[in-house]
């Protein structure tokens, strides 16, 4: 009881007894989650407004006689004439490692029923991106575990790589695979007590997704043991447009905390098409002038300021990074639509997924011709560069020849060889979902196919051959695999060893 009394006394003594100054206004109009407020002469842009009873708004429009604010949460209790106060605070979300393994909403409040989040640090959702002085060029790889990506469209830590494609072409799967791959690498480094490896924490932001999809993603990540390294920010289709608009900014703030504290993080925005739609809704109810396809004029700035916050900062500033993987859903493969072209121009490359390839059974359905990584090759490990340097060209040549070969059957031996090699490379790049591959296994498989050691295997047996070869190398040749992983390059000695191992395996393969 005495402690209670002391606590109350401390609270009372800490209370300011002076006169408080507040800036207030009154609600003139409320509807569609947007309030028009008269007064509030001191309101700042993006300031949190207190509507009382725990309801909070965000000042988005500062006009001559009124303030337009979006309501975060339930707005049905707000009445015309109600008093509103400024708070002097910008909208902020909790950040830190306490969020790892949790599912939160756009404001960082828990949705997973695992109790409150014990975080003392908060970051504003809107923050200026790191400037040119703080930045450093991308030089460390993000191992996605997807062979086609790691070999041909490598992603570096701090890069923004767009994943673009029609519905149901495997866009989310690429993101999920990347998260699972990071979790495996993080866990392996923890188990080996490897201090040189910087763990990569992941943030998955679901914007306007079906709740069942978010639950499925969560179940997959939990099953793969990736949740301890992952934060899920969910603003599902049933959430208000306001929350959908704020979710990626909240998730980005959580990622920035890792970057600012000398750690690496990866954020997946799934997807920015729905984000643009939510922002369009907010803008239209705020009566902002609309432009092309009724999107507001600042929809480009909306995405550019979000994606610019992904960066790699220099050693002087902690050497942290935030890698961004935004996802865009196209309609009937139209990459020249408004939002896709905007995001393509902002990002450092794109992974383009094609419906035709998907239904041909080429999964991940990456279109090699249209996919590009503008900065990631600097981050690729040397061993991968050695084996994958020519793959993109070989595949492009194969596609051209394959189209040409449809018109005639008489082909010279060289063309025939190129076609056969191409077919095998395509097969090697096929990969089941949620099954990322370690980089050394990727290197070994690519080296095998590039050096003609799979030429005598039938095309329909390639996946079986590759699977068994991977198993053989991982279980029987662990020393070789460890060397490739440690040295990160294929020396002549290593190549000889790898050749001997593959030849040995081929003798046993039936």
């Amino acid at each position, binding site marked *: 009881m005495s402690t209670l009394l002391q606590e109350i006394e401390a*609270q009372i003594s800490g*209370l300011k007894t002076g006169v408080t100054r507040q800036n207030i206004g009154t609600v003139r109009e409320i509807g569609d989650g947007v309030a028009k407020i008269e007064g*509030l002469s001191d309101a700042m842009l993006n300031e949190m407004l207190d509507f009382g009873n725990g309801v909070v708004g965000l000042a988005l429009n500062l006009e001559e006689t009124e303030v337009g604010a979006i309501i975060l949460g339930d707005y049905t209790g707000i009445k015309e004439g109600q008093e509103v106060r400024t708070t002097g605070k910008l909208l902020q979300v909790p950040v830190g490692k306490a969020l790892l393994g949790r599912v939160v909403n756009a404001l960082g409040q828990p949705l997973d029923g695992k109790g409150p989040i014990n975080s003392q640090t908060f970051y504003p959702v809107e923050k200026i991106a790191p400037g040119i002085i703080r930045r450093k060029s991308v030089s460390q790889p993000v191992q996605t575990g997807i062979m086609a990506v790691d070999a041909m469209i490598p992603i570096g830590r701090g890069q923004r790589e767009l994943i673009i494609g029609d519905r149901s072409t495997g866009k989310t799967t690429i993101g999920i695979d990347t998260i699972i791959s990071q979790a495996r690498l993080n866990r392996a480094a923890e188990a080996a007590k490897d201090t040189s490896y910087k763990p990569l924490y992941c943030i998955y932001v679901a914007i306007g997704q079906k709740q069942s999809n978010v639950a499925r993603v969560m179940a997959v990540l939990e099953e793969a043991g990736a949740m301890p390294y992952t934060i899920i920010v969910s603003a599902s289709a049933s959430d208000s447009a306001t929350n959908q608009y704020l979710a990626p900014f909240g998730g980005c703030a959580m990622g920035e905390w890792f970057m600012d504290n000398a750690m690496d993080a990866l954020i997946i925005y799934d997807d920015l098409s729905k984000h643009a739609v939510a922002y369009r809704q907010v803008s239209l109810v705020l009566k902002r002038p609309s432009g092309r396809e009724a999107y507001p004029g600042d929809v480009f700035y909306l995405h550019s300021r979000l994606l610019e916050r992904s960066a790699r900062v220099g050693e002087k500033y902690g050497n942290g990074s935030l890698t961004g993987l935004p996802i865009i859903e196209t309609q009937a493969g139209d990459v020249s639509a408004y939002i896709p072209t905007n995001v393509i121009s902002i990002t450092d490359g794109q992974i383009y997924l094609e419906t035709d390839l998907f239904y041909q059974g080429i999964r991940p359905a990456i279109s090699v011709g249209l996919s590009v990584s503008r900065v990631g090759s600097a981050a690729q490990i040397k061993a991968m560069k050695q084996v994958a340097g020519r793959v993109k060209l070989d595949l492009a040549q194969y596609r051209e020849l394959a189209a040409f070969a449809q018109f005639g059957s008489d082909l010279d031996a060289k063309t025939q060889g190129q076609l056969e090699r191409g077919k095998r490379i395509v097969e090697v790049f096929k990969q089941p979902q949620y099954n990322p591959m370690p980089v050394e296994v990727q290197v070994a498989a690519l080296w095998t196919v590039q050096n003609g050691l799979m030429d005598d295997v039938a095309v329909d047996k390639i996946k079986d051959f590759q699977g068994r070869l991977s198993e053989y190398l991982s279980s029987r040749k662990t020393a070789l695999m460890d060397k490739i992983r440690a040295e990160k390059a294929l020396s002549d000695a290593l190549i000889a060893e790898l050749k001997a191992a593959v030849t040995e395996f081929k003798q046993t393969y039936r």
Partner: protein
Amino acid sequence: MKLSKQTRREGRQLFRCCLAGETLDENRARQAVAAVIERKPRGYFAILSYFQRLVRLEVARRSARIESATPLSAQLQEQIQSDLTRRYGPGLSFAFTQNAALIGGVRIQVGGDVYNGSVQGRLAALQESF
């Protein structure tokens, strides 16, 4: 009523004509309304509605409402008036009222600014801190 951009622009121009320095000249405002009603320009009803809104906001901005639990002495009222005039400039209209719910102290509202030195305000702050 939906107001067009032009209506708002004209209402704003009318309002600016009625300003003497930074404060609203009541006589000019009355004359302006009478002139508009007499001439009846296109959309005059909407213009006057918007003008009325601007005048209402301006009047609210220049009104000081001083609430206290007990009546304030003339000297104290004068001091409050002079302090507020110094802070917000001349042309404020003052209204002194009694409000027993404040329990003690004074609450002053000038436009959107509220200075709360009442016991009720302190109790509310205490409640929030708990």
